[in-house]
């Protein structure tokens, strides 16, 4: 395979400077980052007529489908799902095929550049000039070394978006911060992603993770706001599953879907429940109520009344001793404190879902095994998000789906070999005991003043930096995240970037690049080495490999190698560590050594095999719960019975070792939780109903979902993707704002009209689509478009929703409450 080239050739330099000059020429006052020039012979490479198929992984969402990249005469012209890959199975989602356009995006950065205009702002031309990679690395390293010398290394932040597992980006990011000495390297983006579900799981079954799902064997799916057929991962495999469970499988799997507007999943499901935003928890509680009162819970998992007689009666408490629990904990307490009054009628008033539909859904869910209740952002992007998530996840416990066939579990990691170097061997005294050790994180994650239980708080960084609380950052490095565009109240981040030294690594112009002092452009996923253990899928371990299909088109570097390049120049043992690490490819060779002892099911046992197949995997998932008994895989079957201690250690690491309706994890932080949330001490740590705090004074819920064509932010500048963006509503030029006809009529708005959407933070403009698909109390406007910086197709197209999305986060999970805002609309 081709190895990335690192040299600055004369032609490369000319391309880079040509771009910069074009930008300067075309961009005075407009902040344009790129010149509008045709690209042509930049791609022309030697001709051979041979088509080469390369194994790699898609980079457009974290599902990491294995792909076959077709290259003929140096041109990448086709990408199909790899048949060797157990997620892709030869198939792809609509985004997967867009990869060729990403590679050949004409607005890509052509090489490293530095800013020459000290002023930053939307209308300031950065006046980038090309530099060499050596100069780029030296600039960064000099800054970081100087900070470290001053004892201010904590003022360096590394922010990343897409990463998973040991090697994240081809090189593990975490050691950089540890060795260099900053609590802020790295800060992930999980709090603007889906931490709500991670915390909901952690608080109930003890696993701080997304789940793996055995949909293929489930007979009922109850889905809350996880848009299974548009935006839930692994999208490609979800659809393969859909074809199977909805037609090929006997019996056919039933699906009930809960969301705030009619979308593909809602339309394809057997029943759509169009719920009032933020009230999914009430619906789940009422379903739990019916499951208990009608005696539909799974006795082998949950347990039973000692005399076998169902005493769950609406409004009546039970004697805690009368119920003996098996793998759950706190059911009686939950029932007595919360659930006994959560009737369908009660829920109807909150959710607007008719009580009879709630009862029907509950009966179906409670009587059809195996059944899975799953949820994502729709349910937990609210102030009550973790509570909603806990309530929904509790349904899985009630019907005994945890670790069951056709149920849900968690993901095993791959059998990787050790990395080339162990960071622990390279810690100097500063790294171990420097002043950074006493510093909180800039986002106040894990801090009493901030979000004690959150995993990350990237959305708070801009605001905290501006306020100087806890301090101000000096230098910030961004990898696959663009928080000044994508966090709520995005303008705080934007303002903050004006007073930091900003290093952007996106291959494409974006808002962060516009504010950047240095551009160190990354390769696209078609041009790079990189590994990725699977995103939670079906539990069994899977590690896939990205290999370059072509040499980088321009003078760009894979971010992993950029980080290594900078690391090598950091004084002291850090530099030594990175010299030992050497390169991304070297890391991958070391990781692959772990396969020798654990050959994959596809025969992969070394680096070469991994490269040829594109993935290593080893089925099955090792644990299974069968009618209330847990078993471990012994090499032939799930034959080894597990003791409660083993279950606690390996599967449900809660204090009780059971699924907890009353969370011990939250109890540990009781004082803080009560202070931060003001919740009732009697039920603060169990799934309970708390009305969501809507923000803003408007009359419409502002919901900004992800659509199928949203390639995790990478399709905004792809004209092919734009023209397919919102198929149900005809959005083929930009995202459209879905409005119910009653709203439209009251405001005199027609489809195609330009409208003004106002929140407390300001106003944005959008094009209206009047449709019955959306609730009358809701305005739906998908995110993705509305870039104020970007490529020729993305810039200025559509509406930037996060500019008016208020900054409110779930106090427990830290999850940004994207869907909490209320707005008003008028004709513009």
């Amino acid at each position, binding site marked *: 395979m081709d190895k990335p080239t690192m040299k600055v050739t004369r032609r490369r330099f000319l391309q880079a400077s040509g771009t910069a000059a074009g930008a300067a020429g075309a961009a005075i006052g407009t902040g344009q980052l790129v010149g509008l020039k045709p690209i042509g012979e930049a791609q022309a490479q030697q001709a051979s007529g041979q088509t080469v198929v390369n194994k790699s992984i898609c980079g457009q969402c974290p599902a990491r489908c294995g792909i076959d990249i077709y290259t003929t005469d140096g041109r990448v012209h086709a990408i199909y799902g790899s048949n060797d890959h157990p997620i892709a199975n030869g198939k792809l989602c609509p985004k997967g095929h867009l990869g060729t356009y990403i590679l050949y995006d004409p607005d890509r950065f052509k090489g490293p550049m530095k800013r020459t205009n000290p002023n930053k702002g939307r209308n300031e031309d950065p006046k980038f000039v090309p530099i060499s990679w050596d100069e780029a690395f030296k600039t960064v390293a000099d800054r970081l070394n100087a900070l470290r010398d001053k004892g201010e290394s904590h003022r360096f932040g590394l922010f990343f978006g897409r990463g998973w597992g040991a090697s994240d980006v081809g090189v593990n990011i975490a050691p950089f911060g540890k060795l260099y000495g900053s609590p802020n390297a790295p800060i992930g983006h999980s709090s603007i992603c889906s931490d709500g579900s991670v915390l909901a799981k952690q608080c109930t079954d003890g696993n701080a993770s997304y789940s793996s799902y055995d949909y293929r064997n489930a007979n009922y799916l109850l889905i809350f706001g996880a848009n299974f057929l548009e935006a839930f991962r692994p999208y490609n495999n979800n659809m393969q599953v859909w074809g199977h469970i909805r037609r090929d499988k006997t019996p056919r799997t039933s699906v009930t879907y809960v969301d705030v507007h009619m979308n593909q999943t809602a339309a394809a499901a057997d029943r759509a429940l169009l719920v009032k935003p933020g009230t999914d928890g009430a619906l789940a509680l009422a379903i739990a109520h019916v499951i208990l009162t009608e005696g539909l819970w799974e006795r082998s998992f949950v347990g039973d009344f000692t005399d076998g007689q169902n005493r769950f009666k609406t409004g009546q408490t039970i004697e805690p001793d009368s119920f003996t629990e098996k793998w759950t904990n706190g059911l009686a307490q939950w029932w007595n404190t919360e659930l006994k009054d959560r009737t369908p009628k009660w829920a109807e008033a909150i959710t607007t879902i008719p009580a009879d539909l709630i009862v029907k859904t509950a009966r179906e869910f409670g009587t059809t095994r195996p059944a899975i209740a799953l949820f994502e952002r729709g349910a937990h992007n609210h102030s009550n998000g973790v509570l909603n998530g806990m309530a929904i996840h509790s349904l899985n416990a009630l019907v005994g789906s945890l670790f069951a066939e056709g149920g849900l579990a968690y993901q095993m990691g791959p059998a990787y070999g050790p990395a080339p170097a162990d960071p622990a061997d390279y810690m100097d005294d500063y790294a171990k005991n420097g002043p950074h050790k006493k510093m909180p994180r800039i986002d106040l994650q894990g801090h009493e003043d901030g979000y004690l239980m959150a995993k990350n708080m990237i959305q708070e960084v801009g605001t905290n930096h501006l306020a100087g609380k806890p301090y101000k950052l000096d230098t910030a490095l961004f990898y696959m995240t663009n928080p000044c565009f994508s966090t709520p109240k995005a303008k705080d981040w934007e303002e903050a970037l004006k007073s930091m030294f900003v290093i952007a690594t996106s291959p494409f112009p974006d808002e962060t690049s516009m504010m950047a002092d240095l551009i160190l452009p990354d390769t696209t996923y078609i041009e790079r080495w990189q590994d990725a253990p699977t995103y939670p899928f079906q539990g069994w371990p899977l590690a896939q490999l990205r290999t370059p299909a072509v040499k980088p088109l321009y003078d760009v570097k894979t971010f992993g190698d950029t980080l290594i390049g900078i690391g090598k120049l950091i004084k002291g043992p850090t530099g030594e560590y990175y010299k030992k690490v050497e390169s991304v490819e070297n890391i991958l060779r070391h990781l692959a050594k772990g396969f020798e002892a654990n050959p994959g099911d596809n025969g992969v046992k070394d680096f070469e095999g991994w490269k040829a197949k594109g993935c290593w995997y080893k089925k099955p998932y090792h644990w299974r719960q069968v009618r209330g008994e847990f078993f471990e895989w012994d090499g032939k079957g799930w034959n080894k019975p597990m003791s409660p201690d083993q279950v606690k250690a390996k599967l449900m690491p809660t204090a009780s070792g059971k699924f907890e309706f009353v969370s011990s994890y939250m109890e540990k932080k009781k004082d803080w939780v009560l202070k931060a949330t003001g919740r009732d001490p009697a039920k603060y740590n169990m799934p309970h109903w708390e009305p969501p705090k809507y923000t803003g004074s408007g009359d419409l819920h502002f919901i900004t979902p992800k659509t199928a064509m949203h390639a995790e932010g990478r399709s905004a500048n792809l004209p092919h993707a734009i023209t397919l963006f919102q*198929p149900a509503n*005809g959005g*083929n030029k930009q995202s459209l704002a879905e409005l119910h006809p009653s709203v439209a009529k009251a405001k005199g708005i027609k*489809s195609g009209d330009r409208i003004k959407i106002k929140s407390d933070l300001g106003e944005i403009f959008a094009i209206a689509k009047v449709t019955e698909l959306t609730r009358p109390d809701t305005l739906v406007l998908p995110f993705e478009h509305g870039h104020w910086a970007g490529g020729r197709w993305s810039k200025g197209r559509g509406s930037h929703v996060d500019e008016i999305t208020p900054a409110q986060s779930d106090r427990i999970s830290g999850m940004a409450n994207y869907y909490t805002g209320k707005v008003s609309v008028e004709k513009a």
Partner: protein
Amino acid sequence: MSTITNLAPDQASISRISNLRLMVGVTGLVLGLLAGIGLLSGGHATFNTSSLLTWGLPVSTYVFFVLTSTGLTFVASLAMVFGLKDFYPVAKRCVWGAVVTLVIGFISLGLEIGNPIRMLWVIPTNMAVTSPLWWMGLFYLTYAILLFWKFHLINQGDWSSQLSKLVGIASFVAVIFAHATLGSVFGMMAMRPFWYGPMVPVYFLITAFLSGLAFIMLFINLDYGVNQSNMSEGAARAMSRQLPAIFAIVLGLVIVFTIAKTMTGLWTNVPENKIVTQHIASSFLFQFELWIGMVLPFLLMLTAKRHEAKTQVVAGGLVIIALFIGRYEYVVGGQLVPMFKGAWADGLIDYTPSLTEIGIVVLAVSIGILLYAFGDKRLSLSDQPNA
């Protein structure tokens, strides 16, 4: 020859109109070239037509002018095929008018087609006999050749030789087939209910005749300074007596046809017809077409003033506008309901011709005007056979 030998008393107004015509033609040519220049730089992408709505103004213009040519040939044929000698005084003008309008139509279509030059060899070599368009092409080509030949013959003074008569009859027959196949191009479209129907060729026949008559009412009067005393006695007689009567009758028929089509369109349940007809019928253009463009001229033609040149000019002009609108509505109307476009286009398709499309029409018409002016100056269009 019994042409008027004495100078007409109103020569001034004849030349005034003739100069005006030249001016309009030259100005139109310049404007048309300017607007149509987009075609050179941006190709057909400068059209507002698309895969949603494929045939737009240039095609409806083509239909309008080739049917006008058909109508003019009908009128000429009254004398030259059916022996109604009263119409001889306007026959040569009609034939030249037919030539000119045919040229306008062909220019408009030629600039609309992707590879017009390629037609020259792929059409004859492939014999696509299943295509109405192929037959239409064949018949219009035949018609064009015969028409030019016929004009050449009468221009030589050969009005009534065996050959001349045969060519006249042949061109009449050719144009009957031509317009019928053009009608079939639309009428066969079962998938487009607004167009579909066996009566479309008949509808085209009658409207074509009206179109020819309206051109005569307008242009022959203009040629003579809107003053029938400038005409020869025979021409004046034809223009003041028979032709207005025929014009009125055919106009009446077309009004009936228009109302009938609109009525059935409004009554039907097929959305491609009903909604489109509702859309069209409620438009200003249609109301203008019906009331100002047809009913008003019809009423004028019922009064005694129908014999007068001025009335005829007004009526002819209005009917020409009405028919032009009608062709546009017809061609565009059949495509207004998007076909299998789902939410990408979920309303009636919004089409207004682009500047380039309008430019092409202006260009084609201006060339026509200049050609006609040339004929008027150089080809003795008032000639008629010796009685």
